[in-house]
């Protein structure tokens, strides 16, 4: 699909997006599309475009009203900004979203429900600006059903008029009005989740991937609430070099209404098993290697295995950040002896013998 078409669309799926599409859907959404292109699988979802936001404020008359309000303000000060923000937010939240947007967002949401095989599948609704902007970090979790979805999309649009965002724009000399993108990814219903380092964290060896994984939400592994299953996998061949079965006594799960996280016991028989099958481990490693390659350095990655999706779509990357310890180490020492010839090495090897673990 050409870019011209894209710019007039109200929604775009992540897999349709490239990094350069940030002007259409915001940076966060565009980046997710870019990751997908690089074999880094993220939770499936779609974005509402900046164009949709624009259509919304035009069709509802909000655009005109805000332009009028702002031009009547005179000299701008903090209090006036606060008042303008409150005015704008109220205007947006009380407006009715045009049917064309409601229909399209609803249709795409329905596709997501079908994909997961879940009625009213929980999604996150998150803002995604075309320019980086503090304050508009609104993310609403566990939103279910079309009606709520539209409500939270509006809330997200309105978050562009939170005071932090407005003052930031004022200071940068940017305009008052701002359209933003909205991301609607499926909430990852983690059957298991964990953390990956694309190196051996014990010795910095970059030919390894280490994976910690346990039942439920990632919280349990990240906060160290459980001893997870752990693996050391060769990055080049994906050979499992070491694996340790963790005790995994508890898991973190969402409350029934999705409002908060609680802990629950892991049944005895599940504790005794590795919590993910080998094929999922291999998929995790494949994605981790793709991330390592994409960024060109070791990464620290959070992932989840989505209970609602089929393999391999269920292996989902939640968060990535550069690995912090070994990336900083700069002084590199050789790990092998300096020798002139292969013959010298062989002699030295024979004399030293073979150290066994």
């Amino acid at each position, binding site marked *: 699909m050409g870019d011209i078409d894209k710019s007039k669309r109200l929604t775009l799926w992540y897999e349709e997006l490239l990094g350069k599409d940030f002007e259409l859907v915001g940076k966060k959404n565009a980046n997710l599309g870019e990751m997908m292109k690089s074999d880094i699988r993220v939770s499936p979802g779609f974005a509402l475009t900046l164009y949709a936001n624009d259509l919304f404020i035009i069709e509802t008359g909000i655009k005109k009203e805000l332009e009028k309000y702002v031009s009547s303000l005179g000299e701008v000060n903090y209090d006036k900004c606060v008042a303008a923000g409150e005015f704008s937010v109220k205007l947006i939240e009380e407006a009715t979203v045009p049917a064309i947007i409601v229909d399209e967002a609803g249709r795409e949401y329905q596709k997501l429900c079908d994909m997961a095989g879940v009625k009213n599948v929980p999604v996150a609704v998150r803002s995604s600006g075309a320019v980086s902007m503090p304050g508009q970090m609104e993310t609403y979790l566990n939103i279910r059903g079309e009606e709520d979805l539209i409500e939270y999309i509006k809330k997200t649009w309105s978050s562009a008029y939170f005071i932090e965002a407005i003052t930031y724009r004022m200071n940068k000399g940017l305009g008052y009005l701002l359209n933003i993108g909205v991301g609607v990814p499926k909430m990852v219903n983690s059957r298991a989740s964990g953390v990956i380092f694309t190196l051996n964290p014990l010795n910095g*060896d970059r030919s390894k991937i280490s994976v910690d994984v346990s039942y439920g939400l990632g919280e349990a592994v990240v906060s160290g609430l459980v001893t997870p299953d752990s693996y050391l996998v060769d990055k*080049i061949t994906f050979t499992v*070099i070491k694996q340790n079965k963790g005790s995994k006594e508890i898991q973190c799960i969402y409350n029934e209404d999705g409002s908060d996280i609680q802990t629950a016991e892991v049944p005895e028989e599940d504790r005794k098993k590795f919590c993910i099958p080998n094929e999922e481990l291999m998929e995790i490693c494949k994605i981790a290697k793709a991330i390592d390659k994409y960024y060109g350095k070791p990464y620290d990655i959070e992932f989840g295995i989505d209970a609602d999706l089929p393999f391999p779509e269920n292996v989902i990357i939640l968060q990535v950040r550069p690995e912090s310890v070994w990336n900083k180490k700069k002084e590199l020492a050789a*790990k*092998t002896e300096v020798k002139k010839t292969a*013959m010298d090495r062989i002699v030295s090897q*024979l004399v030293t013998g*073979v150290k*066994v673990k």
Partner: protein
Amino acid sequence: MAKFLDPHDIPTIPGTEGWERMYPYHYQFTTDDPERAEHESKQLWYYDGLHYPEPHYPFDLIWDEAWFLALSQNNTRTFLVPPANGIDHRIVNGRVYITPIGIEDPEEIGARIPVFTKRAGYYYENWDSLYENWKVKVNGLIKELEAVEFKSLPDVEDESVVFGNTGIGSGYHLLTQYDELIHKGLKVWQYHFEFLNLGYAAYVTFINTANAIFPGIPISTLTKMVSGIDVVMYKPDAELIRLAKLAIENKIEDIILKPGSAAQVMAELDNGPEGKHWLAELEKARYPWFYISTGTGWYHHHISWNDDLDIPFDALRMHIQSIQAGKEVGRPTEKLIEERERIIAEYRALIETDDDRESFDQTLAIAQRVFPYVEDHLFYVEHWFHSLFWNKMRQVGDILSEANFIGDTEDIWYLKRDEIRDALWDYVTSWATGTIARGPSYWPKEIEWRKGVMKKFQEWTPPPALGTPPDVVTEPFSIVLWGVTTDVLKNWLKSVEAASGEGSDELMGAPGSSGIVEGKARVIKSVKELGLLEEGEILVATTTSPSWAPAFTKIGGAVTDVGGAMCHAAIVCREYGLPTVVGTGTGTSTIKTGDLIRIDGDEGSVQILKRA
């Protein structure tokens, strides 16, 4: 670490008393010399089940004697491998136990270094041309072996002895031909070790260099980096695939697929031009490729494909069926090359210092140089030469059986090689003098008794090791070839303990080929049982032979009692991408056919999930 049973404390199996006379006297664990007895108790002896999954027939010990000498002399006296002398051998209850002899005195090691560097250096530098020359030598020796012939003794010498004034009689000829045969057998093993240990030394150096840079890098991966593509050992199977494809091209595959013996099929093929053409191609493939043994080549009953064409024909049928089913057959050469290059490039790109890169490059290069020999020598010696040799020995058996020294040709294997020489002297001198030989009244009853002993030996489960384990195993050849590492020793000890109590449900070995698989176990004791394998079953064997390759398209994985990452089962399974655990010590005795097992080729573990 706990100890294994002292070698002197192994009880004699009732009814086998006197078994010692079946083998050379110096192969016994004895206490008559206290110093030698102490050496025996203090060493770690491991059962060489890699080569010898069964007890030894007295004659078959010839190859053990041959490599006992060849390997040891090369390490100790020829190349002066700095820290390692030879490998000592013993036999108990028909099973060969071996132990590497190290050198501990640093001064002695130091003194050996310059000699080793000079001598081994010459071989490494000229490896390719020396190896070419090696092939010439071995091919020549094989021609000489083929020329050895045994003829029954005539009542009256031919006139040519008189009128050609040769002055030499048939009796002398028979005796010297036997000596010739034995000498050639011992000689081929001299050649066998001309390169082998140097090859392993270079390979082990690469393994350890790579391990210093990438801690924990699996040996299976390193083997992938150095293994050749045009490997001679795969040639027989490749020839079968060629013949399978040719049969399909010529539309004669249905004749081959018909149940029946190879002879029947060949007779039918001979009726048409396509069939005749195919048979001509078959003959080309047979020499030398069908000299591949159906076993390891170490036992006389490891016959070659040429000895029983039904065996390659069965494999041929499997290949034809696989091709018809649209399966990929044989080794995906191009994929293997691509994969090897990818692996090397990716690792290399992760090396962070120039020094390490140089270490890696140097040791990889030399390992790649030596590896074709490490992979290919087996075909020339253990398969081609041995297969011919066994049949020459059968000719000797024919002569002694005609002379009523032994009941049947195949009884020859119950005599030691020197006993055969003695028997031939008995036969020849009685023939020369026209008197009655002692042999017919002496050997048949001795052989009957030995058969009984062998049967009892078969039933005995040899402990994986004897004597005192060292703190760490450092001998490179033991590690690479036999898979004897400190961890493996610990597991052996565990299995020995477990075996004395109730059966264990978990076995530990060494990782052979990566991956995890679950399936029904099929314990295979000989090549004849390979036909029993069903799709997806896990092969459990003491060890495997390259000629088992066609079966690898069927199985889900493999478990062996003996072997390290370099052993045949591991190499083949990596080629076929099959999870494999090697060196479990007691796999074939602990696992029963039909058990549901789960093998982890990365961890080297086998779990019995459900007993049959």
